[in-house]
Each structure stands twice: as structure tokens, then as C-alpha cells.
């Protein structure tokens, strides 16, 4: 069984993000980057399946700049077998990511695609569902538990106020929730070994996908903080302010 695990390079979750002064985005220069934590869980789940003998090959895919190689190497160090980097500069929207992944899935023909339920940078939570819709595959989103049987996967999902168990026919898409597992730290020997594992580089344009953003973000800013209130001296002043400033009277 072949498992495809898309991974994303994001700002490390420990870093306090700073918004650029002109509101065009967040500061990414000289900031520690790492693999999206939800994707780590997806890689871990795939590696556990391989260790259990269910899976035979794990392919890690990343879409992003050349530095996303490091993210793929992290996945390789955790136990993935080979990597594919689809180079694309600038932000890539979920729909474009899903289209690129569709092209890769069609080339690689995996039995399962494990994705993190969302990336911690834009919190969109769209790619998994969009990929499932594009491929027409069954999906198990927000998986908290996964069991594989012959030709099917049983996924326990965390939905609002409870758990839902769905059975998926393979091939299928699974997006991972936090409770699925505890990702491992890559050991030093495995990090060294990961450097020798094969990594193929492709281009988004070669796959026939246009990655220009279609949703224009006008502004990125810090959420407005709650400001201190005003103290009024008398009831008359309060009524006056309610009339003129608040406009409630």
C-alpha cells in the first residue's frame, strides 16, 4: 500500500508572528520555519502504518519555495521513503494546491492520502476536502482514530459535540486531527539517512496548474485590541455621550 503525505512549510508554531508594517502580510524573513504540526501527525500515522507492515511506501509532497526541501527532509527523517517538491513561489491557494496534488495523485496512484486538517498559517482547512472533491474519492476529515482493514479504512471523526465513525472505501483521503497520535522526533541517524533519500523537484506549471492567487487579500493586520473605556463625571455627561457618540438614545 502506498501512502501520499502532503506537508507544508509554515512559520514554527512557537514563533510569535509579526505583521508587516504595510499590512501586506506577515514577516517571514529570519523566522524559524518548520513543518505544519497537523502534517507531522499525518506523517507519523503513515510511518506507524508502515512499521505495522500495512503500508509499503510513503511519499512526502510539498508545494512551495525551494526551502520547502527542508520540510520534506524532515518528513523523510521521520520515516517517509521519498519526496516530491513542487516549486511555486508566493502564496498558493488551497484550490491550486488541491489541483497540484490531484496531478501528483494521478501520477503516483497511492491508496491513501494523509493530510493535516489545516495548516497553521492560513487556517483554511480546505485542501483535503477539495482534493477529495476533485478526485471523487471518499474523505474522512478530522480523523481522531484510524483503522485499516482489507480495502477499507474506518475513521473516527471529531465533529461538533461528539464522535462520528465513517467507513471509507480505498483509495481515500484522510485529514488528521490533533488526537490521532503523538509525532516522534527524528533521531540523528535517521536525519543523516534522510539526506540520501531521493527527492524529485517539479514545477507547478509542468503539472498544468495555474497558481496565481485569485482571492486578493487587501490587508493583513493585528486584531484590534480592546481599548480602555471612558469615565464620565456626571449623569448629564453620560446621557450626552450616549446621544452624540454612541448614538443609542
Amino acid at each position, binding site marked *: 500500500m502506498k501512502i501520499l503525505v502532503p506537508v507544508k512549510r509554515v*512559520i514554527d*508554531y512557537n514563533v*510569535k*508572528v509579526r*505583521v508587516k508594517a504595510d499590512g501586506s502580510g*506577515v514577516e517571514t524573513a529570519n523566522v524559524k520555519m518548520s513543518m505544519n504540526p497537523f502534517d507531522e501527525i499525518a506523517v507519523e500515522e503513515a510511518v506507524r502504518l508502515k512499521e505495522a507492515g500495512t503500508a509499503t511506501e510513503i511519499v512526502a509532497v510539498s508545494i512551495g519555495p525551494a526551502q520547502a526541501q527542508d520540510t520534506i527532509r524532515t518528513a523523510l527523517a521521520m520515516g517517509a521513503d521519498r519526496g516530491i517538491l513542487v516549486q511555486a513561489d508566493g502564496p498558493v*491557494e*488551497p*484550490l491550486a494546491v*488541491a489541483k497540484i496534488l490531484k496531478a501528483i495523485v494521478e501520477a503516483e496512484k497511492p491508496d491513501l492520502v494523509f493530510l493535516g486538517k489545516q495548516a*497553521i*498559517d*492560513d*487556517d*483554511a*482547512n*480546505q485542501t483535503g*476536502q*477539495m482534493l477529495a*472533491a*476533485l478526485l471523487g474519492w471518499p474523505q474522512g*476529515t478530522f480523523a481522531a482514530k484510524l483503522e485499516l482493514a482489507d480495502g477499507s479504512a474506518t475513521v473516527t471523526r471529531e*465533529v*461538533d*459535540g*461528539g*464522535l*462520528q465513525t465513517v467507513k471509507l472505501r480505498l483509495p481515500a483521503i484522510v485529514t488528521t486531527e490533533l488526537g490521532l497520535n503523538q509525532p516522534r522526533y527524528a533521531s540523528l541517524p535517521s536525519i543523516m539517512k534522510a539526506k540520501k533519500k531521493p527527492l524529485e523537484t517539479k514545477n507547478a506549471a509542468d503539472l498544468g496548474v495555474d497558481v496565481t*492567487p*485569485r*482571492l*486578493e*487579500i*487587501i*490587508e*493583513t*493586520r*493585528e*486584531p*484590534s485590541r480592546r481599548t480602555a473605556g471612558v469615565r464620565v463625571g456626571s449623569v448629564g455627561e453620560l446621557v450626552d455621550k450616549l446621544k452624540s457618540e454612541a448614538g443609542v438614545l
Partner: protein
Amino acid sequence: MTRPRIDPRQAREAHRVISVGRSRFDLAAKPVGVSRRPRRDPRRERAELMVADAGRMRLDRARPSGMAQPLPQREAAAAAPSVRIIENPVFLVLVIADPIENGTLSAVDRQALGAARALAGGEGGVVLCAEALTEVAGRAGADRLITAPAGLSDPETRAVALEELVGLLQPRHVILPETADGGDLARRLAVRLGEPLFAGAEQVSPRGLVRRVRGRQVDQRAMPPRIVTVEPDMVAPHSGIAHEARPLEVDVRWPGAMVTPAERIRPDAASLSLAEADFVAAVGNGISDLEAFRSLVAALGATPGASRMVCDAGLMPRAAQVGASGTVLSADCYLALGIAGAPQHLQGIAGCRHVVAVNTDLHAAMIERAELAIVADAQAVMPAILRLLAEEERQA
């Protein structure tokens, strides 16, 4: 009510004629002095305080007399404009409601309609596509109503039909709630239409949508694209004048349901936190038999709560306390058993849509707050409810 009050002693004094020996009174003398206190007419006060159609009085505990200010009741109802009609909308905003669960629009669907109203403004029309024909649609802000067949719950087949619907109506925006069903449908619709999706909008206006990203540390603002999902509990539902919700016939082939939901395991109500629970039954000082209360809560599938008195006595855990110093509820229904309704307790249930009270005291604040009240000993009501539930179960 403002007829001057007469003090008989003072009136008699005013007629006194100054004389020696026996007291003499001249009753033909000019009228007496007027006391300052206005004379009350209790019958008229009572009539003014009657609630128009309910046949009961409106009491106001904030006033020392206990009497409320008379309300202009019938006149106000007649003067309010009933329905806002947008005959020829300049553009359309389509709202797709989630599969209906309790026979009415859910809170998130109302919020999605509120967001659509904000985007439509005064000229645009809001079209609601919901599973059941609901009269609440107009009040929630829908101008037109498209009835989708019931039982369609899997997003794959719904997305096919909705793509066709979007093609027919050509709405400027399509709004869905960011729930398990709505969110999934929005992503599939985005794929089918090949358009970007703005997921989880928290502030909605025609000038821009705002969503929180990077673990809620950063706000992202964009012009409203075609497909938008609205984060639950972030956008206010429509609260103004009702819209007409005119039924709209569209020629869409609704596919048959391919997947039917088989089983949905609800969380154990007793283990839910009070703030999240939909149905809370609370116990007060009027109850001593907590065993009966526990079995009632289990039978009703309610989350147990308690008043401060009961928690202080150590009969219920502190986490179960409802009120200002306990949990402020957002429940749909609150059942108060033997709770008088201290102001601090009533603060905790201010957000509850329906309140049912059981109390022996007709004048308890909780009875006044409740829409439905049983004036009886809660101790006796509990086994009665249990018996009725058991009977119902036996028949079913």
C-alpha cells in the same frame, strides 16, 4: 389615578367653626385643603398592567411597588411595519442552510442569513435554500425561499444540485455556515465552480470580509469573493424588520440521496460542560430528593445544573452551578426545578431561549422569567414527568 386624596380628619378640621365650649362644624363652608399624595385607583392600575393577550399581569421587580410601567401594547403592535418587500433585487445573495435538525433554522443558519443581509444591503435580495419551508425564514432576513427536498445530507450530491442552482440564479455571493455539513459543501462547491473560497469569515460587510489566521493572531481582510463561509457565533443574525421569504420555484434536478445518515451518537449530556449544553435541567433549594432529580435528568437527556444554595450545601458539584458566580448558559432550553430565581441566578440564564419553571410560589422571579411554569411542588412533579416519559416510551 390622580384624583386628590382626601384626609377625613383634615377635612373635618377645615369645617370647624371657632367657638367656645362644644365643637361646631359648618359643613357648607368651602372645600377642604388637598393632600399631596395622589389617590390610587387599583382597578385601573391593574387593567393597565394586564399583558395584552396573555391574561396575566406584567410585574416589574425593579420598581419598589412591584408594578411595571404601563406598556403601550396593542398600539405598538399595530404601528410596526410588518414585512419588508424587495420586489426587484439588483443582485442576489444565496444562503444555503444546513440540513434541518429540529424543524427550524439553526442559530448558525440565522447568522449566515445575517451575514447575507449585511452583504445584500437595501437593494440586494437574499435567497435562502433550505430543506423545509419555514416561516422563520422571513424573520431571519430571507427575501426569497427555495425549498430543497429533505434527506439530502451528503455534500457530494448536494454540491451537484447547488452548482446547477448557482448557474440558474447567478448570485453575487453564496454564503454557507462553517459547520461540518456547510463547510464541506462549500469546499465542494468551490471545486465545482472553480472559484476561491473565503472560509470562516468573522466580520462581514460589503467593503470587506475579515477572518482570523495563524492561530487567531492575525486578521486577514479581503473583498467578498463569490463563495464565503461564516464562522459560527461571530456574525449577528438579522434582527430588523422581517422580509417576505417569497417561495421561489426553480427548475433544478435534485438528485436522490446517495448516502443516508445511519447513526449519530450524541455526546453524553451529563458529561457536557454547562456552557455548551443545549438543554439544562437545574435543581434548587425546593428539592431534597436528588436521586429523583438524577434519574429525571438521565431520562430527559439533559445536562444537570444547580443553584448556588444546592452547591453551597455540597449536594451538587461546584461546576454545576448556574449563575453569575457559576456558569452563564447558552442553552436552548432551561428547566428550573424548585428555583426561586435570585437575580444572580437569572443572570446566568439570560441567554436561554426557553425557560420552564417548576415552583410552589406563584410570585417567584423564576416563574415570572419562565414562558411555561408549573406552580406545584417540584418534588411531586419530577416523578410525574418520569412516569409520563416511561409511558411514552412504552407506547413507542
